[in-house]
């Protein structure tokens, strides 16, 4: 349940932002989660909503986009989507670190991170009268 640690970090960061911008309401938080990170979107959402309760973030929507993994091979110069082990399990394709071209080991260039990309805000301050 490492999603709880990730969600705590997320809420902490947003509340820090909110403290500097008290006249704005956060409506939506957009995250990107890499294919290589081991974070379950539904668990993260559940943890976020639980922690956000009774804070200024309560009611905000968490939108999660998945970032595909990109790997590169030092042996044959392949760069692109990884090879999948389709027959490993019935329910889901399993990503491997095997080059789809030459079968040797690849390095991951993209797909490790989990990051806040943007937030959607509602301006709530009252404009000064002119």
């Amino acid at each position, binding site marked *: *349940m490492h999603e709880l*640690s990730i969600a705590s970090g997320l809420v902490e960061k947003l509340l820090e932002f909110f403290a500097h911008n008290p006249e704005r309401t956060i409506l939506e938080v957009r995250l990107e989660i890499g294919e290589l990170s081991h974070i379950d979107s539904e668990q993260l959402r559940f943890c976020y909503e639980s922690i956000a309760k009774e804070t200024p973030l309560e009611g905000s929507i968490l939108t999660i986009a998945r970032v595909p993994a990109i790997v590169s091979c030092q042996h044959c110069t392949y760069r692109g989507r990884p090879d999948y082990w389709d027959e490993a399990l019935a329910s889901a394709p399993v990503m491997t670190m095997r080059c789809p071209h030459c*079968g040797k080991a690849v390095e991951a260039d993209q797909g490790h991170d*989990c*990051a806040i*990309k*943007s*937030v959607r805000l*509602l301006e*709530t301050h009252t404009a000064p009268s002119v």
Partner: protein
Amino acid sequence: MRNMIKLEAQPDEIYDIELEHSLLEANEKLARQNRALLDEHGTTAIDFMGAIGSGKTTLITKLVEKLKDLCGLAVFNGDATTSEDADQIEKLGVPVVQIATINGCHLDANLVGKGLRKIDISKAKFIFIENIGNLICPAEFPLGSKARVVVVSVTEGPWMVRKHPHMFLGAQIVVINKIDLADAMGVSVEALINDVHTLKPDITVIPTSCKTGEGTDRIAETLLAI
């Protein structure tokens, strides 16, 4: 007259702002700091991950027995509640740090960094870090170790590697333990090795029995060569 045009959001206006912030970066930064501190002292940390009962503590015990007269060692034992593992290692006469995560399902770089401040790093050539018995969460949290070892055992069944593929993608060494029980379990060690290499062709796989000692010399040699 200033040329800058300033636009301000009006009340009730909805708008987006970019807020690039990695949620994993905080741990990764601490892991890099741990690594720099270890490198400064010429110390190599090895992170042992695997399920409860796969044999992590027994393996570390064997490695400590083999290596303690050759070089300085220290062991960090991560455990949610008990100090059973740390108590066992302490009897071998090497510095031990018990890291109790209480409700935490993994060690993180912050906890390991605190542990590093409790010992004399300069006296340790190796620090063996035993992670929490868990096959998913620790993979997400680098600690600053030079190598990550996954310990699996044949008693976890024939599909163990396929069921937890993520754990292996970031590891350098896989120990397949309890091979003395493979026949009784009806599990093929060869098939497990093939599964690991299908996931990651360049990973080192070492079949062992920590009970009989088979394969443990090769693990010690592999660690000494890192």
